[in-house]
């Protein structure tokens, strides 16, 4: 079953068309990696699918519900309930600084999903444990390292039981020695068959963990295929050039 289907999606800022005629789908339980040079529209694509930006054209279907149909959005209630099935992890975490770690993870469960306080708390503590942050429930975000903050933000997203979790360069704001702890968490999630769409520059991670990969350049999808194949034997000239630049700069 497809969790997300995107057809002919375009987004312009004024006259600037940033993504153009993009189609792809994400199947239940798979990991899709989106790679590509900076400025190629990867963030805009995630933001358009998660409705942080309004798309200009195209169709988006989430778990069978069409939220965007030929450039026209569904009504607010349909949109809202469908979007609840998506989670998004930001590059710079965007934790709520005035809430404790625990409350960062419980607040939406209580206010949005109307879970009981005790249940929300239990779920949050279990997720913190899983993220290796068992002792940090009462800490505040400002007391955490970048890697710890990102793990809290992943827990915050997971607490709402999304059908699919989007990541926009989840390790790019971190010191290199902290990226490992985030990638490890994501590997665990992948092993548990969490459906994920990951924008990343970590080619090793994309190659080993993702089932499929998609290369974007200039706002379009240049190549798409099984992750390992696409990264090891790219067919497209632009993919090859991108990966070559990458391995030369030593970031694979």
């Amino acid at each position, binding site marked *: 079953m497809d969790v997300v289907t995107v057809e002919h999606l375009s987004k312009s800022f004024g006259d600037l068309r940033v993504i153009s005629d993009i189609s792809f789908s994400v199947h239940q339980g798979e990991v899709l990696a989106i790679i590509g040079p900076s400025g190629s529209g990867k963030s805009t694509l995630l933001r358009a699918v998660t409705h942080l930006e309004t798309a200009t054209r195209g169709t988006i279907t989430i778990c069978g519900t069409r939220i965007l149909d030929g450039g026209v959005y569904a009504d607010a209630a349909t949109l809202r309930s469908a979007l609840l099935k998506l989670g998004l992890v*930001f590059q710079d975490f965007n934790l*709520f600084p005035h809430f404790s770690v625990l409350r960062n993870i419980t607040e939406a469960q209580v*206010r949005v999903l109307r879970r009981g306080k005790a249940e929300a708390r239990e779920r949050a503590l279990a997720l913190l444990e899983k993220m290796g942050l068992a002792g940090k429930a009462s800490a*505040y975000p400002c007391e955490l390292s970048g890697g710890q903050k990102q793990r809290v933000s992943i827990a915050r997203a997971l607490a709402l039981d999304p059908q699919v979790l989007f990541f926009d360069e989840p390790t790019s704001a971190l010191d290199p020695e902290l990226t490992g702890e985030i990638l490890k968490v994501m590997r665990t999630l992948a092993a548990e068959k969490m459906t994920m769409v990951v924008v990343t520059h970590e080619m090793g991670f994309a190659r080993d963990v993702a089932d499929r990969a998609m290369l974007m350049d200039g706002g379009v999808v240049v190549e798409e295929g099984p992750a390992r194949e696409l990264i090891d034997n790219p067919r497209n000239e632009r993919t090859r050039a991108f990966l070559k630049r990458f391995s030369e700069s030593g970031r694979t």
Partner: protein
Amino acid sequence: MVKMLGAMLEGSLVSLEIFLLTLVFALPLALPVALGRMSASRLVRVPVNLYILVMRGTPLILQILFVYFAPYYLFEASYDRFTAVIVAFTVNYAAYFAEIYRGGIQSIPKGQYEAAKVLGFTRADTFFRIVLPQVVKRILPASANEVITLVKDTALAQTIGVAELFRVAQNASARQFSTTPIFIAGVFYFVMNWAVSEAFLRAERKLAYYS
């Protein structure tokens, strides 16, 4: 002497009343004003902006006179002087507080709204549970300035004859050919503002648990 002190005590209670009532009305009123100032609709934004411009651009003393005498000249309606003072102070201070709120609201990073939206929070929850608490922390220092100014501005109520502390002190001082009452009034304002500063310091310390 005792009589003078009694009168001054009464005067300081009037000043205190002006101070507290202004805060009670102006602090909440400033929120819709700030939101109106940031409204996407010109129809809302332009008049609110004009209101703020006038309030900040003309002397408070003039506004007090206007609020009290305009109804009289227009409709021959006269009303309580103390009420006029509270109205004038409230609309004036709401404008200043609104600009402080606006600065605070606009300083909250866009990412906070985006995270809230992705998590499914309603707009009201986003504003009241996520944005506003952070705004309060950020605007405390600027608000302290404004509140301290308000303590001293209460002396302007005498413009339309309200017997607040400074007027009482001036009268007593004229009667007794002595500057002592004025000096006592000065001590009162000082003590009052010392308490205000202390209250704000405590609030800041209370919110220092995060950054």
